[in-house]
């Protein structure tokens, strides 16, 4: 039995104007558990709060029911008041008799009746309230960044600069990511490498940053503040400590036929290699699939040439176990492979390139040394056709339903770069819409179309046909409604941005939710765009959705700030209104686990004493640090063993009962 004080607020005339305060106050006194009821002009004012505190003291109240404005307005206020009066702050319930009553009803009689019922419901609930105590957990002052592209680098640098240690885990042998592959960046046309490589070096040299390249995340457990992660550092076959990066081994390697991932397969590399000249760290890696030593057991030239004895064919994958307070996902993207669209002849004609391949070709350090040529005959093309929206904005069966956001701009960039270098080449761009929202973006596109005379055609390309070595582009001009054909020497496909397909496994490990396109879901699409719904997991860059470089960097910084918000705390105070499992009732069926969006429910085998019967049972346990208190599990649980503190089954039923009591 509680000793409840009911306090009815006038809110000046806001409530008192329509609701008979006196009547509500009087009938509150008759409600079960109520030992004191009072009214006041403004409950939220200093005076009102004082009245509450005094009443708690004088009448030994155990709970406070305030009939006032929306709890969204002053619940916190009254909880503080309760705490100041020595009560648990969760022994407070608010009846919203302003927004939900006095402001919407004109008839005094019915408004008073409704206010009385709302008061009654709040008291009925309060009778079942129990003091709640938020859980506390410690914070490991270290961050993990998964992905070493520009997003990961930026986030890591920001966190490291703030004074916390960061580890970057990068799958490939070097950090740098997609941006390192780019030639120029829009809309300024500055050199991508020139702005990226210093950041890569910064990251490598930062005291607070440790790089784990050629590494992957194997296992994640724990929760915000203390994630425990297993990182698999794949065997490089090169001792990182001993290697001085001289490159002799690369020169000596007899295998020269491996496809260069960095050049999108347009050039070849040796079996022991660094992806590109500016790679960080500048330590080669043996590609065991192509290495003769690993294939046949013979060879070993690199080992012989190496002056520092850094080559180690026996090297094994190494598992590193670390604790982290936060994890930032920066897994980026990969361009969609257009092979599935037979109509574009990709993979059939060497003169059909993806934009990224084209980007490499235009790069002075690229496979052709920056010379634009047809790979079929090494001739300079006379006419180039760019096709946009390859795989983007398609129906779900054919490609991606979303707009990849960056293609319009990079295609304009490519067109412009071509025209600048080779003004005599005809450049055609097929587009559905040209989308240029962004600072100086539209100007950039117009410059391409107007100054550089790029032929923009609103149209859909139906198919390509190989006509005596030239590529016949058959398309419909949507503006004229006519079919047109253009003979091109080179066709460039602006392929969709696609989340790396292997991130789903990572998402599962992190219990971070993902959308059907394998992009990570943000906690709130508007208000929490860089946080995953899972506490302590943050999203940086394209892993959350297509973005250009400035947006990626901005989001990377934002993710860093959010992460720092946790790292800078010594203790995390949880929300006490979270799910709670009654182990005596739990039957271990996993229904709750299935619907928890946060992975906050774990099952353990535990000895349970059920009225003297002891046995081992599989029971659900809610991790206080992870649960956010949505209550999805409570309804999934058929036995009612899962309940939500602060909104228990009994409390909600009591409210229902009170409302329906006529």
């Amino acid at each position, binding site marked *: 039995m509680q000793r409840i004080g009911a306090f009815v607020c006038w809110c000046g005339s806001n409530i008192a104007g329509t609701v008979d305060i006196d009547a509500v106050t009087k009938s509150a006194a008759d409600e079960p558990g109520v030992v004191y009821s009072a009214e006041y002009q403004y409950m939220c004012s200093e005076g009102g709060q004082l009245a509450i505190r005094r009443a708690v003291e004088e009448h030994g109240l155990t709970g406070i029911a305030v009939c006032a404005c929306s709890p969204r307005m002053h619940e916190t206020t009254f909880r503080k008041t309760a705490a100041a009066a020595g009560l648990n702050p969760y022994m407070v319930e608010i009846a919203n008799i302003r927004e939900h009553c006095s402001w919407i009803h004109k008839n005094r009689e019915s408004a008073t009746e409704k206010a009385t019922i709302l008061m009654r419901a709040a008291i009925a609930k309060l009778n079942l309230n129990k003091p709640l105590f938020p859980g506390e957990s410690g914070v490991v002052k270290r961050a993990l960044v998964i992905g070493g592209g520009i997003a990961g680098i930026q986030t890591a640098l920001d966190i490291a600069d703030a004074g916390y240690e960061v580890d970057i885990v990068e799958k490939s042998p070097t950090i740098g990511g997609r941006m390192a592959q780019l030639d120029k960046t829009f809309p300024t046309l500055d050199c991508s490498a020139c702005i990226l490589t210093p950041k890569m070096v910064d990251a490598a040299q930062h005291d607070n940053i440790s790089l784990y390249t050629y590494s992957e995340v194997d296992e994640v457990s724990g929760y915000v503040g203390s994630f425990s992660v297993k990182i698999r550092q794949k065997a490089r076959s090169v001792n990182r400590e001993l290697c001085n990066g001289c490159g002799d081994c690369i020169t000596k390697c007899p295998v020269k036929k491996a496809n260069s991932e960095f050049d999108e397969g347009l050039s070849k590399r040796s079996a022991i290699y660094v992806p590109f000249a500016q790679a960080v760290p500048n330590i080669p890696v043996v590609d065991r699939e192509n290495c003769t030593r690993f294939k046949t057991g013979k060879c070993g030239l690199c080992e012989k040439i190496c002056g520092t004895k850094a080559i180690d064919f026996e090297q094994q994958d190494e598992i590193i176990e670390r604790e982290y307070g936060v994890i930032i996902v920066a897994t980026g993207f990969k361009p969609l492979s257009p092979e599935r669209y037979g109509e574009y002849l990709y993979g059939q004609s060497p003169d059909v390139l993806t934009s990224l391949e084209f980007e490499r070709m235009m790069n002075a350090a690229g496979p052709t040394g920056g010379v634009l040529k047809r790979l079929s005959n090494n001739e300079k093309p006379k006419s180039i056709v760019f096709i946009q929206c390859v795989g983007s904005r398609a129906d779900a069966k054919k490609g991606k339903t979303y707009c990849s956001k960056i293609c319009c701009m990079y295609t304009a960039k490519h067109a412009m770069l071509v025209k600048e270098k080779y003004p005599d080449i005809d450049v055609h761009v097929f587009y559905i819409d040209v989308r240029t929202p962004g600072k100086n973006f539209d100007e950039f596109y117009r410059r391409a179309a107007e100054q550089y005379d790029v032929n923009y055609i609103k149209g859909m390309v139906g198919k390509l046909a190989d006509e005596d070595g030239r590529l016949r582009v058959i398309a419909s001009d949507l503006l004229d409604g006519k079919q047109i054909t253009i003979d091109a020497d080179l066709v460039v496909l602006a392929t969709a941005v696609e989340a790396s397909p292997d991130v789903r496994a990572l998402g599962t490990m992190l219990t971070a939710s993902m959308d059907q396109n394998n992009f990570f879901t943000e906690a709130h699409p508007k208000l929490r765009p860089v946080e995953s719904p899972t506490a302590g997991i943050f999203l940086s860059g394209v892993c959350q959705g297509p973005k250009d470089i400035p947006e990626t960097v901005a989001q990377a910084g934002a993710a860093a700030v959010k992460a720092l918000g946790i790292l800078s705390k010594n203790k995390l105070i949880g929300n006490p209104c979270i799910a709670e499992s009654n182990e005596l*009732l739990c*039957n271990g069926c996993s229904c709750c686990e*299935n*619907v928890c969006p946060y992975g906050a429910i774990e099952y353990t085998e535990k000895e349970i004493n059920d009225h003297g019967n002891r046995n081992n049972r599989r029971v659900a346990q809610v991790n206080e640090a992870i649960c956010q208190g949505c209550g999805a599990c409570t309804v999934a649980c*058929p*036995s009612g063993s899962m309940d939500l503190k602060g909104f228990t089954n*009994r409390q909600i*039923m009591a409210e229902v009962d009170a409302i329906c009591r006529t």
Partner: protein
Amino acid sequence: MQRVEGEIKQKAHELLKSGVVSSVLAWKKGDLVYDAAPAFFKSPNALEDMVYNGFCCSNLSKYLIEKDSENEKVLVFLKPCDTYSLNQLLSNHRVIKDKIYAVGIGCDGKIDIEKLRAKGVKGILEIEEDGESLKIQTLYGDETCVRRDILLEKCLNCKGKDHMVYDELIGSELSEETALGDKFSQVDELEKMSSDDRFEFWRCELSKCIRCNACRNVCPSCTCRKCVFDNPHSGVNAKVNVTDFEENMFHIIRAFHVAGRCSDCGECTRVCPQGIPLQLLNRKFIKDINNFYGDFQAGETVESRSPLFDYNFEDIEPNVISKGRGIN
């Protein structure tokens, strides 16, 4: 059937004797001809009373729940439809596969003695299966009956002759699909009625309920340690249905709590002493799930996840269903 019974006994004998299992869960012969009660057999000698015939209706998977706490392995015989329940129990972690040895056995439909009684046959002493017809000896003379006419409701909507999970199979060639047609036909019929008629129908049926909990306790998907209806702290507990509301609530919630997990094994209907067609409530949920979220058969695999614990961005809106009704 006799041959299969022999093989089953043989298998039970073999596994008990060799110590692979410490008990056998099967059916035991009683005094009355149609009496085949679920029973545990712990010694090879006891197996004499074991029986497998047209009256072995019980879905034995329910008895496997928490057998894991006893550090012993149980041999269980499961008809094809029972294996769906086992899978469901496995996926809900209520049964540990290692603790059981499941032998799938063939089934050609089981007989509902209540249907025979409803035909006015009294004083049943002997029943002889003669192909598709049954010869019944009673205290009041001999009767005959077409087997199909007195098959259990669940057999008329047989899920097929395949076992979903088993360690080995015996007599699966015996299996015969006995399904007569669309298992949703009765649900469809009800849906076609007016709301008033449906209300009337269910009032008549549910008012028969004596709240004996047989439907719940026999259900292999109802596996709560303590049902909300038994828990004084749940706020909805009650020993009997005092009002029609309690009848409705009990049956709606009973069906809802197993929606997406109910494999339609039909045990609830079989055991209801009052003959309430409880399967209709479960099948309504199954039909809705199939219509709204795609065909789903609970217990088909251990991995299958209840559609109620899943979602799609484009799921149908409840208001549309209740207004349109025409989503079928």
